[in-house]
């Protein structure tokens, strides 16, 4: 095995080496436990890094410095935050449903961690290669709504309940375009397995990769997926469920200390897993972006893409104002859903035009034109009757 190949497989080799110390019948179990430990260690580590990078990035966007006191350049801020949240008093409201209140953050974190099980982090680096991996991810992702509603309901607080209601309404609405926009990938690949989806994108034409995002339907699907993912993870500009200016902190208003930290962790891990799936489905997973960069280990590519996605999410958060509830729902049902449905048709056309005599560049033009026209027209319809200028008041002026 060459050095490059060894570096690429270093974690897999490490896993096998450690498992080698155990009796044969125990080895599969040990391998799984090691994989779980790696995931449970790596992603919260990225979460800690993200919290400080997000605060610094948002600060820079607002022409501030951001945290810069704890450690060099404030990089140890998450350690201080962790100690703080661990030592803080854990307050449970007297009228809260104590058991559900206690379980909600655990259910959230467990459900979110389960999503990582089918995420291919590198070549041969996936915890379980399920045939229906994508289905598993969406099923698990939907169960986070349960924990959010548990938190909001058990807190016995109007803000918590309002936040939870908003969260559930929003997440159920955006689950539809999220699923439909990823179905195109399944249609083209012919598999629900995340490993197969990445492998299908691993070729190169010249030095350019065969990522799905570089096709008309893939690009549209990617854009829809990212918007739906933002809404699904309650990130700005879809942060209505926890809008600080409206609902204190939304469904986790009544949480303090480490349970609050768990909610925070769950939210960010949810963002990572859904960003990881966007990467897997449309951005070639762990594949290199250029053929001459293939010597870089596959897991490095995955994490670089993940950091890029996180940076983009932070950038969006620093830019967008929050949507109104009606705008949110209008956008989901009047724009995202028709576009996602149309994208299914376009993906089908792409698939069959490729086989026919009109293959090659003709399908590019047809598919791009259809999607672009739909985008412009739907955008017009959506913007119609919307007074986006300064607001005029009938009586207050």
């Amino acid at each position, binding site marked *: 095995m060459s050095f490059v190949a060894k570096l690429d497989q270093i974690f897999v080799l490490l896993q096998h080496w450690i498992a080698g110390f155990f009796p044969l019948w125990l080895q599969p179990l040990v391998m799984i436990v090691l994989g779980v430990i790696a995931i449970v260690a790596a992603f919260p580590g990225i979460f800690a890094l993200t919290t400080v990078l997000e605060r610094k*990035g948002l600060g*820079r*966007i*607002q*022409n*501030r*410095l951001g945290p*810069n006191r704890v450690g060099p350049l404030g990089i140890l801020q998450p350690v201080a935050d962790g100690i703080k949240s661990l030592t803080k008093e854990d307050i449970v409201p007297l009228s809260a449903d104590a058991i559900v209140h206690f379980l909600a953050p655990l259910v959230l974190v467990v459900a979110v961690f389960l999503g990582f099980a089918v995420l291919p982090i590198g070549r041969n680096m996936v915890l379980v290669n399920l045939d229906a991996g994508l289905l598993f991810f969406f099923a698990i992702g939907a169960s986070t709504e349960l924990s959010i509603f548990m938190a909001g309901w058990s807190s016995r607080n109007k803000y918590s309940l309002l936040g939870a209601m908003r969260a559930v309404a929003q997440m159920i609405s955006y689950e539809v375009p999220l699923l439909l926009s990823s179905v195109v990938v399944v249609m083209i690949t012919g598999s629900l397995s995340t490993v197969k989806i990445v492998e299908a994108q691993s070729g190169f034409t010249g030095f350019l990769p065969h990522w799905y995002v570089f096709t008309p339907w893939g690009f549209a699907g990617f854009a829809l997926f990212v918007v739906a993912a933002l809404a699904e993870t309650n990130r700005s500009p879809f942060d209505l469920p926890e809008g600080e200016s409206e609902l204190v902190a939304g469904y986790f208003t009544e949480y303090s200390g480490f349970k609050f930290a768990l909610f925070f962790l769950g939210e960010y891990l949810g963002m990572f897993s859904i960003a990881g799936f966007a990467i897997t489905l449309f951005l070639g997973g762990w594949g290199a972006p250029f053929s001459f960069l293939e010597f870089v280990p596959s897991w490095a590519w995955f994490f670089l893409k993940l950091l890029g996605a996180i940076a983009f999410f932070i*950038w*969006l958060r*620093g*830019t*967008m104002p929050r949507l109104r509830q009606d705008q949110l729902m209008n956008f989901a049902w009047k*724009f995202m859903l028709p576009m996602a449905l149309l994208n299914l048709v376009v993906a089908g056309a792409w698939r069959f035009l490729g086989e026919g005599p009109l293959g090659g560049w003709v399908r590019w033009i047809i598919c791009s034109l259809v999607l672009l026209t739909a*985008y*412009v027209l*739907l*955008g*017009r319809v*959506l*913007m119609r009757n919307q007074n986006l200028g300064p607001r005029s008041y009938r009586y207050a002026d």
Partner: protein
Amino acid sequence: MLGEGMLKGLAETAENFAGSFVSKERMTTVQYPEERIAPIENTRDFPFLIFDGTDPLAGLRCVACQICEKECPPKCIYITKSTDKKPDFVGKPQNYPTRFDIDISVCMSCQICVEVCPFEAIKMDTQFELSTTDRFGGLLLDRDQLSRSNEYYNEIHPTEAAEVDARLAEEKVKAEAKAKAAAEAAAAKAAAAAAAPPAVTAPPKEPIAKEPGA
């Protein structure tokens, strides 16, 4: 087209992000304990007592009239009036507070005590670093802690202090003129009394005032 404004916004924030690394002028904040921005002139947080001259007790303008104590909406001022008197800035004997406490954990910085004070004795301070380890005793400021010189007041609120000083000087001049007139009148009276024989004490017969319109 849909999304145009979003791209514009993203470009704007990207410019801010990159710009914050290269240009210091963009920065809207300073690194607080090391760098400080001088407070603007109308800054106010908690009240303090003004004294003239150098001795905080002798020059204290407060006469313990207790108007501020009664007007204070959150009732955070506690005054005990003295039984003896000391001369104020025009030399008139006045009471003074033996105890003047302000509980700044209760004070809401409304400035009503300043508005109602007829003696220009209480003004708003600009000190904001008042944290203490004792949240009850440490935040109850007594008379000695509250006393600040008129020079200090001139330093923190120059415009307002100049007005106050002008007004006080005017009052002092008036009071002095009045005192002088009174003294002159007294002197004249004394002189007249000395000149006239004390036997003739019959008051000069006043002409009977005619009723208007009579």
